[in-house]
């Protein structure tokens, strides 16, 4: 069946290429194959990671949200963590490979990709295979604000955070930390973590010895804080929902973590009906708009990693619900481009292996990008706004 085109629909990438190819041929111009380069990152650049359901090798898709074109891909080993800077100048990952596919000598390493050629510009081995192997949580590997230090997490035999000097392309050191998880950098020598006891730890690593302090405990044992909160490094703010949709705004802009009044995404009546967040990456934050996006649905208890079909948009300042967007698909992860005008809402379906892209203002789906690996779960965006 012929591909249906309407006068109004813009040309797809495939159609553009066909038209250009036909035009060149008609003019008698030779094809000159070569290797392409990546365009400069902009606010509509979006990265989708495919952990491929625990496969020994994985992939990342670099996509232009405005057109839906895949711009390039990177290969990763076992459960790599993507690391993307806010200014778009650093594309890196913390990864693990084995000498014989899935066994033999293990190598943990940081790989940095040239942003134009996508060829590796650094390959930094980490001593003692330290990295925590776990499903992909964005905050298990991060950059400091100056992009010079990469942080990664170690779990066993004892929690620690590793520092990698990207500027000099070498491993720096491990810092022992308390029983705390994930990293939220606020300065080039400071990051916060969330601890088992329910407090936030502040880790200052600029001096000879790390300086570690704790906030008050801010949630009880029965408030289960999800693994993949939304973090804005520029705002120094975490939006941390629990399984029931209580969202803790954790303000890291001061001397110590300060947790503001929690926002209940749902009324008590809604919660009784079963409304609760769910998915792999079910919360996003738009810094300039100061809006929270929560992926949620009516669900049975203990289904917090099942996909959801709705996004609730919440004003972060007032806690008021702005709107509810029907995603039209089973969505596992969401994110939002950080530009103020023409904001895009991204909804990734692991089962469909498709990134659905919506106009944030109208809530309408405007395009989609399919064939994204085997089990894509994570969406990363940069925040290039001032």
């Amino acid at each position, binding site marked *: 069946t012929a591909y249906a085109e309407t006068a109004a629909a813009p040309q797809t990438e495939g159609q553009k290429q066909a038209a250009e190819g036909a035009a060149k041929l008609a003019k008698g111009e030779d094809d000159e194959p070569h290797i392409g380069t990546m365009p400069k990152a902009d606010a509509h650049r979006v990265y989708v990671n495919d952990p*491929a359901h*625990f496969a020994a090798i994985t992939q990342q898709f670099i996509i232009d949200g405005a057109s839906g074109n895949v711009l390039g891909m990177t290969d990763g080993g076992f459960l790599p963590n993507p690391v993307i800077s806010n200014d778009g100048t650093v594309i890196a990952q913390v990864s693990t490979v084995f000498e014989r596919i899935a066994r033999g000598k293990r190598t943990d390493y940081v790989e940095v990709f040239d942003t134009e050629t996508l060829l590796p510009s650094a390959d930094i081995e980490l001593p003692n*295979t330290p990295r925590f*192997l776990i*499903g992909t949580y964005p905050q298990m590997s991060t950059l400091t604000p100056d992009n010079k230090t990469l942080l990664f997490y170690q*779990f*066993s035999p004892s929690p620690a955070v590793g520092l990698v000097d990207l500027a000099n392309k070498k491993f720096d050191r491990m810092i022992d930390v308390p029983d705390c998880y994930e990293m939220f950098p606020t300065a080039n020598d400071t990051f916060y973590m969330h601890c088992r006891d329910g407090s936030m730890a502040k880790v200052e690593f600029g001096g000879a010895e790390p300086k570690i302090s704790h906030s008050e405990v801010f949630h009880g044992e029965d408030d*289960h804080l999800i693994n993949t909160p939304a973090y804005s490094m520029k705002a120094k703010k975490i939006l941390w929902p629990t399984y029931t949709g209580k969202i803790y705004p954790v303000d890291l802009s001061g001397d110590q973590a300060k947790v503001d009044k929690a926002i209940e995404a749902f009324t008590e009546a809604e919660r009784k009906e079963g409304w609760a967040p769910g998915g792999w990456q079910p919360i996003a934050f738009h810094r300039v708009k100061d809006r929270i996006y929560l992926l949620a649905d009516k669900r049975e208890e*203990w289904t917090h990693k099942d996909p959801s079909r709705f996004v609730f948009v919440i004003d972060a300042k007032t806690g008021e619900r702005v709107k509810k967007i029907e995603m039209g698909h089973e969505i596992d992860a969401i994110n939002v481009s950080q530009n103020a005008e023409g904001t895009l809402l991204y909804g990734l379906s692991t089962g469909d292996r498709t990134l659905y892209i919506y106009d944030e203002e109208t809530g309408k789906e405007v395009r989609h990008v399919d064939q994204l690996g085997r089990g894509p779960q994570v969406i990363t965006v940069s925040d290039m706004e001032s």
Partner: protein
Amino acid sequence: RAAAEGATHAPGPREARGKWEPQDHDVQSCNYWRHCSIDGNICDCSGGSLTTCPPGTKLATASWVASCYNPTDGQSYLIAYRDCCGANVSGRCPCLNTEGELPVYRPEFGNDIIWCFGAEDDAMTYHCTISPIVGKAS
């Protein structure tokens, strides 16, 4: 087509967001009662069994746990999900259940972690998971 004898394919993961309704008659189905908090692939589908690892893999000593309800005797048992490691993921019988599953800062009940600790040769890749009982749920 008509069901052939010994159809080996298991019903897939449960309906999204649906109630957990455990059964006690088919280990290769994601709603088998012991798999109530499994994340990964059922070892019985790739040469292992309910409680044994497939040949060629390495058995972890560590695990995460969940308290799963057995519909046959009405009791709840603590299942210690141990991973079979050192081989690429099997790809057969994938399931993700999260009964009682807690976030990473309560790792004892967390199923995102690669629980290969203690496997021989420091094997740390994930192939599949077994569902042995370690006791009655307290």
